[in-house]
């Protein structure tokens, strides 16, 4: 077994390595092209030098990761973090991206809705991804909002956006 690409705790040499290697290779190429556009400087390596070196390094590592996975035999076991039921995986991934959307919306609307409304709404949305218990869905947003308000506004004096509540 090649120890340089030996299995880690999450995945190992699977198609995921090919995919991640390919993505990293793409990142390296894009980054390298961007680095070439950085103006140079007289008499020293210049601001583009290190980025170009990093792009080459990442491209090499990405190619190694993807290439090693391509030539490796398919693993007999599922990755350590795989969920037990295949039909649940799609739902699990959907929950993740819903959480991402909720977090991005919270950040985007933090100043519009204000701290209280924004935090309560965000907490409700994310709590809903964990449970359907109505008591928790009602108390968690209130509790989280109050605790954070106490810590940041009252405890540390941080100015939090008031939003429409004023």
């Amino acid at each position, binding site marked *: 077994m090649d*120890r*340089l*690409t*030996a*299995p*880690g*705790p*999450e995945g190992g040499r699977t198609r995921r*390595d090919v*995919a*991640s290697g390919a993505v*990293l290779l793409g990142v390296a190429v894009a*980054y390298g092209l961007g680095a070439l556009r*950085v103006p140079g*400087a007289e008499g*020293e*390596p*210049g*601001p583009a030098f*290190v980025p170009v070196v*990093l*792009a080459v*390094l*990442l491209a090499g*590592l*990405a190619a*190694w*990761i993807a290439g*090693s996975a391509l030539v490796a035999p398919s693993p007999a076991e599922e*990755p350590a*973090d795989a*969920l037990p039921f295949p039909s649940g995986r799609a739902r*699990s*991934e959907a*929950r*993740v991206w819903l*959480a991402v959307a909720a*977090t*991005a919306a*919270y*950040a*985007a609307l*933090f*100043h519009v809705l204000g701290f209280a409304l924004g*935090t309560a709404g*965000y*907490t409700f949305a*994310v*709590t809903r*991804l*964990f*449970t359907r218990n109505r008591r928790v869905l009602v108390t*968690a947003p209130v*509790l*989280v909002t109050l605790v*954070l308000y106490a*810590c*940041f506004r009252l405890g*540390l004096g941080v100015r*939090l956006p008031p939003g429409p509540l004023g």
Partner: protein
Amino acid sequence: MTDVLLDPATLTALAGGVLLGIVVGAVPGLTATLAISLLLPLTFQLSAVRAIVMMTGIFTGGIYGGSIAAITLRIPGAPASAMTMLDGHEMARQGRTGTAIALSTFSSVVGGVFGGVVLVLFAPQLADVALTFQSPEMFSLVVLALVAVATASQGSLAKGMAATVVGLMLSTVGIDRLVPVPRFTFGSVSLLVGVPLIPVVIGLFAVAELLHQVRRTEDDAPRAAAAAGAHRAAGWWRAAREAGWRLFLKSSAIGTLVGALPGAGAAMAAFLAYTEAKRASPRPEAFGTGIPEGIVAPEAANNAMTGGAFIPMLAFGIPGDAVTAVILGGLVVHGITPGPQLFQDEAGLVGPLFAAYFASYALILVLGMALIPLYSRITRVPREVMFPFIGALAIVSSFTSEGTAFAMYVATAVGVLGYLLRRYGYPVIPVLLGLILGPMLEANFRRSLILADGDASVFVRSPISLVLLVMAALLPVWMLRARRREP
């Protein structure tokens, strides 16, 4: 020197500083640097002695406080606590939160006292050693630190290196430090100053952890098991003995030495100490599974760093890290000029500073142990409340750290990155270290070549630099051999 601490007002300033430092250090998004910066105007009302004592308390408390969130929430309160999180949080998941915090507290105190003793006894000598580290040596030290973390991380070496390079790439965003041209800013004004560090820490750990937990809503059994004995600190002394006094000493020495190097910082101290502990351990495969050594090494090192960081600041007026830079500003405001003459001209201030330093660690020991039941309650909060709280805390903390909406977007985006890295088996800590050390790496590399007129042999002509580069080259070989010994 100790008489000044018997003054109730001075003691109150110290205790207040330590407590504030612990709280600030424990809250992701807040740092000791921020706390001291915010309190600097307040210290104008205090005498020079009380101001120094308070700032020292915030500094030491802040470094220690970062481990609390790392252990209980799996969110490093400060970048330096990222390594403590690996074994600390795992120990908490096993129902030994109290033990983990007690061990972290004890290690912090041992490391802090060690750094303080070195500070008092050897400050001038260590300052001379620190002066021998010029640009080539600093570049080589950073290379060693980056290689060390990449090889010590879980997973394959190639993935660890790739994660490190990703972090280094992030560090190149913004205006170049030597030639004022923008790099990878995409026309964004917010990116001109680079990718903000604290939102990245919050994103990589807090937001990513939230996403990871959302994906797995079944199987609540691990948290229930953790709640049972979480508040007990039983066994922490046995765990400390299991780690061994040699590990305490070695990690503290690493932390003190790194702290004495200007700009190196607590994160590098913790990463190097953890890596060395893993390399030298007869059971390297156990790191990351909740073993005492994984807590002792980084905590002893990053707290020993606090003593080391004072050395260049007091001896030469060169701050050892961001916090000491702000403290230096505070000293100047109070009419104190650090430098070689400080120990003669301002002996009346140096003594209280040393006394406050040691007294702060005594307070950390007492407060840390006494508050274990309170910290342990955190692990008993149901996950359907805890993780939404973490998500909201992450976004609010990001906003607080920079005061901009941009910081919140960074935390969210980096959170997605951290989640994907973890899903595909890449370690995230090398990304963080690459972001932290990237500027130092590049600046010292280019400065070395400028001063040597482009002669690359400058990195091997210096014995110190050569040794560090050889160690960096050999470290992957040692680690791979250690992995081959794994069952």
